[in-house]
């Protein structure tokens, strides 16, 4: 086993343990923390793939910003420990089972494909031919993927305006 494989197993295991912990913990704060651990492990996996920029952005955006907001909301609402019935039950149960089966099928499909030797070889070849530096990502974003990039920024702008409108209306009602 080479060092890269050891690191892959290390980060993969942490990522899985974190993901299982998210749904196992009864307390939302512990779940949120486990999710942060998973994001970290995934950042490690990105580094192993040579995608340093994506790894850094993963930590900055998900672990650094979004999860802080999650914690903020959990603390503000002072959510207590969830009971087993409250977490999965009622109408959502059937929906959850369907989604779970779909996810499992997807996972099995990907695993079957990955075990196929030719797929592994082509993935390795693809990984070797691409070096993803920040420069490359920037160039791709502003040439090949310019339209999706701009559309994404428009969606973000719409969300931003939505937030401002919502906050403004609330303020006027108070007055």
């Amino acid at each position, binding site marked *: 086993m080479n060092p890269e494989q050891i690191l892959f197993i290390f980060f993969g295991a942490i990522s899985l343990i974190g993901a299982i912990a998210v749904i196992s913990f009864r307390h939302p704060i512990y779940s949120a923390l486990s999710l942060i651990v998973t994001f970290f492990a995934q950042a490690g996996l990105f580094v192993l793939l040579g995608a*340093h*920029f994506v790894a850094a952005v993963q930590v900055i955006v998900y672990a650094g910003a979004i999860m802080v907001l999650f914690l903020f909301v959990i*603390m503000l609402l002072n959510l207590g420990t969830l009971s087993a019935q409250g977490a999965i039950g009622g109408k959502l149960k059937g929906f959850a089972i369907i989604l779970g089966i779909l996810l499992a099928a997807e996972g099995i499909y990907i695993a079957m494909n990955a075990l196929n030797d030719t797929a592994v070889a082509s993935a390795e070849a693809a990984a070797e031919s691409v070096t993803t*530096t920040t420069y490359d990502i920037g160039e791709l974003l502003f040439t090949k993927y310019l339209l999706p990039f701009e559309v994404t920024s428009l969606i973000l702008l719409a969300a931003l305006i939505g937030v401002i409108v919502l906050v403004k209306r609330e303020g006027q009602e108070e007055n």
Partner: protein
Amino acid sequence: MPLLVLILSSIIKIVIIVHLLLIGVMAMIWSERRVSGWMQDRLGPNRVGPQGLLQPIADGLKFMFKEDLIPDHVDKPLYVLAPAMLLVPALVTVAVVPFGNAITLFGYEIPLQIADVNIGILYVLAITSLGVYGVVLGAWASNNKYSLLGGLRSSAQMISYELTLGLAIIGVLMLTSSLSLRTIAVEQGAYPWQWNFLIHFPAFLAFTTAMYAETNRLPFDLAEAEQELVAGYHTEYSSMKFAMFFMAEYMNMIVGSAVTVTLFLGGWHFFGLENVGGPVWSGLISFGIFFVKTAIFLFVFIWVRWTLPRFRYDQLMNFGWKFLLPVALTSIVVTGILWIATGSRLIVGIGNVIAAFIVVSIVAGLLVMNKTPEPAIQDSNRQITPSALDAIE
């Protein structure tokens, strides 16, 4: 360079830097108290050792031998974890900071930096953004109203000022076209007018201010406002855990100053001292220059503490979102346009200052025109302070 030399030199560098950081914390605690004393025309600690120099050691011993108290009502795992979660990011950020040029020893050129990562500055931003967890979790795990208020204030403040912190450096990155901290330091010349802080002066001010907020220092220390929240997020902590919170705060200050020196103040460059001495001495001198610049910047931290009073919560948010963020955004646009159009650093520098001045005037004008009554006056007869109210809402 053979692998063995690489590993050995890295280990030696890590040991030296971590120890320097710890000694730096002690030096900072001493100088904070002595300089504060000097600024307030009193003595400060001067009994333990010459000039009170051994005071931090005495304090450290006291922290270690005190009983490690864990209150009954806390969430134990997170209560224990929180100080470590604050300390670890503070310690690992320093890995990418270039603290000097290279030293040539036994024919090997050893750069004075633990790791030259090609996403250096993003790594710094990513790791510093994690520091907030220690504060928030410590506050929540304490199961104490004052702690929780401090933690909530801190998280809101850090999220708001992180944006400015990230956006303010983009101008620097555009002109350097690299994310590596070493490249950014190398690109700046030996003379002060070649350093980034003059080319990106508004961004430099925005970055420094945001950094003060990120390190929870006055005038941004609402998270531990003594008059309102006892001691904020670390009210329930004592002995070594409390010390860890404080060490993390001072380490963040030291690392933040080092990053600012690298980004804006020319790193280890200083005119006249570029090629003094042999291969070993020039490296050590470059480290010395870096050290002195960081120390001066740290002194400013203490200076500001006794110059500016603490912000009110709404002032904090207004300042961050309505002044600092627009200034940082303008610096990106202006730097980009002027750099492509003229390619002259002088014009970029002048344009940045003029644009920032215009933006700040517009914002200030708008604020004066839409002035609403001060919330402090409305709430003056309530028992709860307006800033606490804001934090609850």
